[in-house]
């Protein structure tokens, strides 16, 4: 028995190692930027390869290397790069896929579906839209003293943690998407001076960019309407030349589908928010119960109007980001079967009802 095993191991040692890779030769693609090359349908692939340079005795400089290549598909483009530089290109550690505006408008997911074939690809990478010159952004050595990759991913990570932007992991969108309808809102970067910044979301309908965007504030509201949890998100609102700042403590959202026996009459989205008031621009004075009640009413009114606007924008773009279609299909399957959701969704009556409570005013009265 032991001898057999020993012989077996010796045989294996003689044959070499099949799947072994050398870590030092690996090039870890951190950010992938996808665009069309010129006016053709060829894919222009931009990568940022991250590495740590001059690391010795506890030091080291993170750096990003920018590479560009062109090809018919993702695989083809990668293949072309291999002829241009040594090392083993891999997507083992990719954190962000950035797509350009025009690429997004033209069924980007059909290209991205092939990423599911990358066996070791961590599909938790973000997908985001960049409304500008992709190669120019990615080719930058440093942005705000960070590498481009750390900069972009850092913004997304932090904002996600603060609960202000929806998360868009690649896995949730490709191959038909995890959601019922593949409508989603991708985080959108835009050029800002020499650098870039997060500018709301780009609305996608059936995996295609509609060209309609939500700005930062609308994004947060849309995200809450979609069912986000309260995570101390910051609110700023302005009504009757009063300015409020508040932090969100709890959020609860519910859909009510009012229907007749044949059709969906109205969908009511109730959103209950518990806030912590930080400032209301009224200088220092104690909050009485009445003032608080008034404040609650003003904020409620303000948010209701804003939510209605967000929903109208979503409907106009025919982007069912809130997955109302799924709600109807799940709880009223017969109604859903009878209707053509894509056509009727923009015309549906959807009404947001926001209820705001101010739980406290922080650590000062």
């Amino acid at each position, binding site marked *: 028995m032991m001898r057999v095993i020993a012989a077996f*191991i010796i045989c294996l040692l003689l044959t070499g*190692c099949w*799947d*072994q890779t050398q870590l*030092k030769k690996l090039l870890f693609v951190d950010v992938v930027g996808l665009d069309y090359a010129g006016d053709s349908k060829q894919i222009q692939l931009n990568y940022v390869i991250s590495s*740590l340079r001059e*690391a010795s005795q506890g030091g080291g400089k*993170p750096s990003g290397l920018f590479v560009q290549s062109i090809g018919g598909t993702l695989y083809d483009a990668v293949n072309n790069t291999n002829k241009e530089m040594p090392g083993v290109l891999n997507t083992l*550690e990719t954190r962000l896929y950035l797509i350009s505006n025009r690429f997004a408008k033209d069924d980007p997911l059909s290209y991205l579906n092939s990423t599911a074939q990358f066996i070791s690809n961590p599909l938790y990478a973000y997908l985001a839209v960049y409304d500008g010159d992709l190669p120019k952004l990615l080719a930058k050595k440093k942005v705000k003293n960070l590498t481009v990759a750390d900069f972009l991913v850092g913004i997304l990570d932090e904002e996600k943690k603060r609960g202000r932007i929806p998360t868009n992991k690649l896995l949730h969108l490709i191959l038909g998407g995890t959601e019922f309808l593949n409508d989603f809102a991708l985080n959108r970067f835009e050029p800002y001076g020499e650098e870039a910044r997060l500018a709301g979301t780009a609305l996608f309908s059936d995996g295609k960019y509609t060209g309609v965007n939500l700005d930062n504030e609308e994004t947060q509201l849309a995200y809450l309407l979609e069912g986000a949890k309260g995570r101390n998100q910051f609110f700023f609102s302005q009504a009757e030349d009063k300015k409020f700042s508040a932090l969100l403590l709890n959020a609860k959202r519910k859909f009510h589908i009012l229907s007749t026996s044949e059709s969906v009459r109205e969908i009511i989205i109730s959103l209950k928010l518990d806030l912590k008031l930080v400032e209301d621009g009224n200088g220092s004075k104690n909050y009485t119960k009445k003032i608080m009640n008034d404040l609650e009413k003003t904020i409620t009114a303000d948010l209701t109007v804003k939510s209605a606007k967000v929903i109208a924008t979503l409907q106009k773009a025919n982007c069912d980001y809130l997955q109302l279609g799924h709600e109807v299909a799940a709880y009223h399957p017969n109604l859903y079967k009878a209707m053509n959701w894509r056509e009727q969704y923009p015309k549906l009556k959807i009404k947001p009802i926001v209820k705001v409570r101010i739980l406290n005013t922080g650590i000062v009265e």
Partner: protein
Amino acid sequence: MKLSPSVEETEQYFKQLFIDQSDFQAKRLVIGGTEFRLFYFDTLIDPSNVQDFILKPLLLRPQDPIHEVVSIIDYAETEQADEAVHAIMYGKTVLQRSGESRLYLLGADLKKERSINIPSNERVLRGANEAFIENIDTNLNLMRKLINTTDFVVKTYTLGRLSQTKVAIMYIKSIADTSFVNEVDRRLQSIDIDYVEAPGFINELIQDQKFSLFPQLLITERPDRARAYLMEGKVVVSTAGSPDVIITPVSFWSFFQSSDDYQISWILGTIFRLLRISCFFIAIGLPAVYVSVSSFNPNLLPINFVNTLQSSLKYITFPPVVEALAMMLLLEILREATIRLASPVGQTIGVVGGIVVGTVVVQSNLVSNTMVIVAALTGLASFIIPSYEMSSAIRLLSYPALLLASLFGLFGLAFFFMMICIHLCQMNTIGLPYYTPPFAMNPAKDTLLRAPLWAKRTRPSGTAKANKTRLRNPRGWKR
């Protein structure tokens, strides 16, 4: 052979037998007309004892019966010459009175023994500080003093055709299962060899699996530990000339137990036990994990981590396997060097190995930073195991693990661990399963966890079948 009453003839007989032995003495005495002969090895006896307790009384009362005259407890008579020969070899003084065809075997042997020391290999913080010594009688004495019951049985044999080494097995009659005692007995009796080097020879000759790396018999130098195992129904084998005793049958988990566990709070004991068991995995698997992560699955680590790892490997020429093998070999050389060298020099080895080699090897880009950490951790982890045999076995096992990991990455490592697990499951010690799964609600409650004493009401069912109750009325004062 029958003896003749003539002292001359007896002397002739012994002299012929010990013709080449220059230290054999046949002392002639004539006291009050009666002729006596004393036969002994002068290297084995204590002359002053012979003088005081044999000769002096004899001078006074040469005609009285010997057993009344000599003041020696270790007294025997024989009419068989070969029996007397053995006695002489053991260091007895043999006396013959002319005209009697019998020999008196008088124990006046020289006792050269060192004092009882602090255990050197199994140090503990709390608990007894006595260790066994080479003298079996002292060892039995230690054990007898620890266990004051008539149930405590000591059986002795002599093993070794030439060495005639005294071997004792100890057990507690009312607890130990007779079948195991008989089996140990049978196996010991069957040993027929020139001399016995304990515990190594006995170990090898009575253990079940011939080709296993894992130690199957527990070796200890602590009487309190031996007692603890006796109370679980196990058998202790002590051999003359060896300060270590063998405990059998023990399970895999015994090698992770230390006397300290029972002196401290059971919660701490459990945590230390878990630490040791996790070190078992670290010592076997860590270099293998390092190799498989760096050359098969770097995607297991997030990008920042991978970049750090990559940068430390950037200028290293060797593949990670060679790095790992080199460092582990270095560790093994250092370990062996420190054991073999005299202790003051041993310290220097530590300095040379730890500081000089460690730093220089990294600075010269031969081995990566990470590998040095891995090697150090592996070494430390293996030394944490209380049993020297187990810790060496574990260190050896890390080599095949490393090779398999370098071929198949994590799957190779998993394959190796599965093989070890199956191997352990199939092993026997004295007919009992060697390894029982830790979560199988082992009645011993002393495997992965060190259960509190009040929860361990029963003895392990394997060895103490009949008499199970260990603890009656735990914490009974509360009621």
